[in-house]
């Protein structure tokens, strides 16, 4: 059972605060630095190049509130996440952005991007073509060329060149952030992890919207505190697998039932920060290689399903007992992978529970399912 009381939980307050006040943060950052802010739609966007240009990349995420502003722009059969993202733009919550961009991953989020581009005026917008077939030997050279074009476009917009020195510092900043978050995740492998899944989520999601310099400093402080932090027995050790997920309410609900998420396969988790940019002298090639070879989003994990082995590896390393497979409603790439992932996990004796996210989650109904799932995992005091 988790012993962390919300009030006492100061260790992760900064991350939580950043996550909850992302807009205030970005506005203050602009004021303070005079720099530009770009909103991005997918974690395939190479933030290295944006940091090299002194631009703050901010991931566009939803707000998990019911809304009615996207109906004229996106069909209701598109995923709730892409609609929620667009809603934030239409409601003016990102009015401080100087530009927006996307790297091609799935069509749903691209629809949110194109609709935003059409209806919400910004100074700059960029669609970065990104290889879908990342398993092809030609994917890296393809992406490298596209990155060069993107860099040129940025240079034109900001009015000066981005040097190799700039790029190197962008890469170093991103890599350091990845390395530090990996170190935090390493601690979750322990029998008593010093952080909850909810806290890990605050940490990773906030890194997608906060200046990485600042985020890195906070991570270094965190890494000093965590080894001596004791939050007690984790209960059942769970992995959460699926599409974009910053549903903190859901994480909180599951962990309030006495289980702990010890790792994840999410683009708001490990998929975002695992794998660094290598040290090749050809910087653009090195960046391209990282984004082609990172743990893939299922929209790109084709024709081989490389995520299956990766997920199994995670369950071993983190000593996982149960898996919650959760995806945005109508997310076809995830839907297609789910039966294979479920089968593979159950083969290894890891129980699974499948759930679908909507903009708002029916917490009561989900709670019944999660409780029943935990009852399956729990030792059999009832029999």
């Amino acid at each position, binding site marked *: 059972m988790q012993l962390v009381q919300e009030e006492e939980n100061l260790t992760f307050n900064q991350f939580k605060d950043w996550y909850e006040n992302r807009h205030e943060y970005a506005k203050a950052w602009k004021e303070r630095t005079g720099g530009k802010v770009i909103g991005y739609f997918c974690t395939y966007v190479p933030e290295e190049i944006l940091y090299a240009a002194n631009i703050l990349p901010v991931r566009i995420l939803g707000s998990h509130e019911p809304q009615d502003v996207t109906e004229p722009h996106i069909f209701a059969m598109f995923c709730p996440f892409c609609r929620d993202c667009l809603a934030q733009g239409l409601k003016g919550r990102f009015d401080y952005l100087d530009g927006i961009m996307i790297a091609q991953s799935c069509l749903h989020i691209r629809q949110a991007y194109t609709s935003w581009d059409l209806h919400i005026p910004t100074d700059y917008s960029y669609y970065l073509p990104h290889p879908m077939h990342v398993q092809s030997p030609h994917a890296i050279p393809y992406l490298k060329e596209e990155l060069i074009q993107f860099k040129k476009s940025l240079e034109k917009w900001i009015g000066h060149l981005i040097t190799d020195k700039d790029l190197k510092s962008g890469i170093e900043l991103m890599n350091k952030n990845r390395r530090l978050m990996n170190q935090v995740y390493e601690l979750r492998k322990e029998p008593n992890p010093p952080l909850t899944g909810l806290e890990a989520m605050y940490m990773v999601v906030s890194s997608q919207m906060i200046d990485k310099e600042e985020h890195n400093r906070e991570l270094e402080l965190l890494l000093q505190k965590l080894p001596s932090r004791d939050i007690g027995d984790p209960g059942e050790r769970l992995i959460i697998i699926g599409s974009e997920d910053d549903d903190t309410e859901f994480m909180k609900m599951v962990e309030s039932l006495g289980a702990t998420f010890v790792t994840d396969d999410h683009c708001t988790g490990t998929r975002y920060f695992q794998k660094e940019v290598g040290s090749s002298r050809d910087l653009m090639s090195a960046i391209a290689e990282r984004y082609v070879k990172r743990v893939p989003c299922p929209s790109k994990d084709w024709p081989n399903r490389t995520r299956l082995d990766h997920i199994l590896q995670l369950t071993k390393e983190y000593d996982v007992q149960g898996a919650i497979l959760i995806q945005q409603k109508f997310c076809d790439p995830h839907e297609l992978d789910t039966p294979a992932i479920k089968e593979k996990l159950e083969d290894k004796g890891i129980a699974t529970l499948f759930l679908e996210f909507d903009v708002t989650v*029916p917490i009561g*109904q989900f709670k*019944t*399912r999660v*409780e*029943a799932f935990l*009852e*399956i995992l729990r030792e059999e*005091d*009832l029999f």
Partner: protein
Amino acid sequence: MANSESKEYWRWTESRWTNPDLDWKNGEIISAGVDVGSVSTQSVVMVDGEIYCYANMRTGSDSPDSANKSMKWALDGTELPLDNIEYAVGTGYGRVNVPFAKRAITEIACHARGANFMYGPTIRTVLDMGGQDCKAIRCDHRGKVTAFLMNDKCAAGTGRGMEVFADLLQVHINEVGQMSLVDEEPEPVSSTCVVFAKSEAVALLRKGWSKDNVLAAYCGAMAHRVVTLLERLGVEDDFAITGGIAKNIGVVSRIEKELKVTAPEPSIDPQLAGAIGGALFGKALVEKASKK
């Protein structure tokens, strides 16, 4: 009074019962299960794992109140004081709101355990068709859940949907199933969404369909919907149905036909399964505690 009652076609019969062959004073462990569902609430009191008394009534707007009322009714005339119940378990939507329960356990676990008690240890697949949701459950020989699936956040294919149809067609809910058993099976209605199916039924009536044919079309659609849920989970014999809809021969026989399985005839009201499971868990928890 009788007149206004008779117009409430959806109103199913509330009931209570005391086992004439048991005396609670001779029992060792008195346990109880209270299943506060979205539509109905059941209290079952067990003496050493045998049903001693029960009540089955409609859920009110207030969960603790519904739990208290149903337990009070179950104990009515038994002279068994509530305080003598050693362990009460709450289950169902209102499981955390049962004032006198020591523990809340999900209705999924309780229905599997209850079905195991009602139909025997060979049951491997349980379909619980409740008031507002529907669960397909797989379990082992002890009635422990091994896997489950639930329908989405919608009342299609549930008791509430059937109540709406009883009301629309002015056929008493207890007669709906029998009436739907027509000689020539019509095409099922195309939607099980309660609202859409109701509009569709109105159109069919206007076209001149008889009530029994409309009911057949609705029961068929409902059966088909839960069969797809069961097929996603995988059905292993033996198969049993719990919950209010288990009393509807029109739906049950169509499920059996589609799945090519037979569900055993319930000897105990199948709406009680969850509360029975809860009472059995209560007994197990008392036994575990005394061993320690």
